[in-house]
């Protein structure tokens, strides 16, 4: 594992939080395996991002610059990352398994003839043997995987790493890669991008989240949760069952396939606590469960449990909080 190349996705002028996590993971891996960390950025002219990557520990940064790369475009990003990986002679490609990583990891691994492993949260070494650790079976278990090919593409699970502390005194080389955009390769075209206006606070950034599940019985229950959330200065989340029922939009979904959140307080109302839901709240500090079934698995994750019909508790809670919080 000598040479680690990290794809660092950036938005506007700065690295994405996923990219920073992967840089932290890569630095940790490099220090154990005595390897080097290099990064690659794709964009119009991602110099600021490149400098940031250096401050997070990259010793060399490749920048693929072209005005046509301003917006993320899967075919071109895959092609340019493939080119840089080959040029860099790296052994490992690390990327955040975020929205873009999910497009790119499988394609790149196959194109490179590399092994692919996704949703990785950690690694282990035993002598010279390296294994990748990831949750399996909806977070019910952990698996340790070895790889059989010379090269490997590794997708790091979002929100699984502590972000490293940047050090602006670090130095590194920035290499602009000569890449002529093969326009004929552009097959996937963006028609429109809709930013959801429903919630002002992004779930990922919220300090307090009041989340509802199938136990709410319908969209009306979410209005009660909304009132409570507003009072607490928080925001509303939901389980997949509630989203699939159409009670709330799918971007409110918390869990393995939804938002991975890290609030100080997470109130789960009428949510059973399936492992796929819990996968989204592993970093929540205090979890309160309100559920009528004392056997619900959510009580195994919650710090405080309220066994009751939510309809008797939520309105009382909101009323009383109004008095406490003014």
């Amino acid at each position, binding site marked *: 594992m000598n040479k680690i190349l990290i794809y660092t996705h950036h938005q506007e002028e700065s690295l994405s939080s996923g990219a920073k996590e992967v840089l932290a993971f890569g630095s940790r891996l490099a220090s154990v395996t005595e390897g080097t960390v290099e990064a690659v950025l794709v964009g119009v002219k991602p110099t600021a991002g490149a400098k940031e990557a250096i401050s997070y520990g990259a010793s060399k940064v490749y920048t693929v610059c072209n005005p046509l790369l301003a917006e993320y475009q899967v075919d071109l990003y895959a092609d340019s990352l493939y080119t840089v990986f080959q040029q860099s002679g790296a052994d490992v490609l690390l990327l955040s398994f975020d929205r873009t990583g999910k497009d790119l990891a499988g394609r790149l691994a196959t194109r490179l003839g590399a092994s692919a492993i*996704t949703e990785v949260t950690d690694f282990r070494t035993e002598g010279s043997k390296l294994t990748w650790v990831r949750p399996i079976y909806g977070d019910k278990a952990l*698996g340790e995987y070895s790889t059989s090919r010379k090269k490997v593409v590794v997708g790091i699970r979002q929100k699984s790493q502590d972000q490293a502390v940047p050090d602006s005194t670090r130095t590194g080389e920035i290499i602009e890669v000569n890449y002529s955009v093969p326009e004929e390769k552009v*097959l996937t075209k*963006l028609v429109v991008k809709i930013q959801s206006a429903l919630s002002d606070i992004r779930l990922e950034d919220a300090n307090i989240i009041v989340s509802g599940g199938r136990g709410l019985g319908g969209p009306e229950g979410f209005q009660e949760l909304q009132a409570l959330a507003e009072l607490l200065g928080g925001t509303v989340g939901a389980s997949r069952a509630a989203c*699939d029922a159409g009670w709330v939009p*799918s971007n409110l979904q918390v869990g393995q396939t939804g938002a991975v959140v890290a609030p100080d307080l997470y109130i789960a109302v009428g949510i059973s606590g399936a492992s796929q839901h819990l996968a989204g709240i592993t970093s929540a500090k205090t979890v309160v469960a309100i559920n009528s079934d004392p056997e619900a698995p959510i009580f195994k994750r919650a710090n405080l449990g309220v*066994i009751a019909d939510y309809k008797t508790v939520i309105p009382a809670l909101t009323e009383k909080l109004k008095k406490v919080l003014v």
Partner: protein
Amino acid sequence: MHIVVCLKHVLDPEIKPRYFQIDPETNRPDYGDNDMVLDSFAENALELAIQLRDKTPGATVTAICLGDESSEEVLRRALAFTANAAVRVWDSEWENLDGQAVGHILAQTIKTLGGAELVLTGYQASDIEEALVGPVMAEELGIPCVTLVSDLELADDSVKSTCEAEGGYTVVSVPFPAVFTIISSETNVPRLPKVKDIRLARSKSISLFEAEDTDLDKERCQPGVRLERAYVLNRDVNCEILSGSEGTVLADELIDKLLTLKIF
């Protein structure tokens, strides 16, 4: 138009953690046949495939599953959803395939079937959750892949897909043929098959493709990753259950607790 949907037979993801165990010999969960189901996002993909076919004159749906004989039940389910054909791909020599190997074999199977305009998969299987098979197949077939798709709309020579994006969604357009990895949404909630269709499905045939029936690359059928060890995670927290039974009392208790924790 030929629509292929790829279905995986998986351990029921809703299985309660307390019944979930891993056999240290095989590194696989201990389970009986009853605990196996059709992967849930693949079921959303199946529902969408059938809806698209019904809107498109002349279109057909083929369901493909790579799995041993027990996985025929997911193909029966697809037939009960009124899929036009079902193909099971299996060879006793295949062991511990990973997403890349599965992607290669499925892609070659699709070629053998004469190709497809639309290939639909679940976004991620509910057992190992690699989220690889769709993009790998696209790469193998040399066609575009759109991931995290909640809905599709067909035009003459292209497809518009609604995809999940950070903080909202995007609509992207790709030409045929292409692969789409499907997530659940209000529009692809799996139907309840009609009793008549379930009965009809029982008598329909399922084709079997073995290794020699498709043009496979031996090297690509080898897994690139190997599970060395697996163990159950225990994340249980000691939960303090509030004692009251009246809603108002419980609300008071909860507020007190949260105030002592200095959350607000």
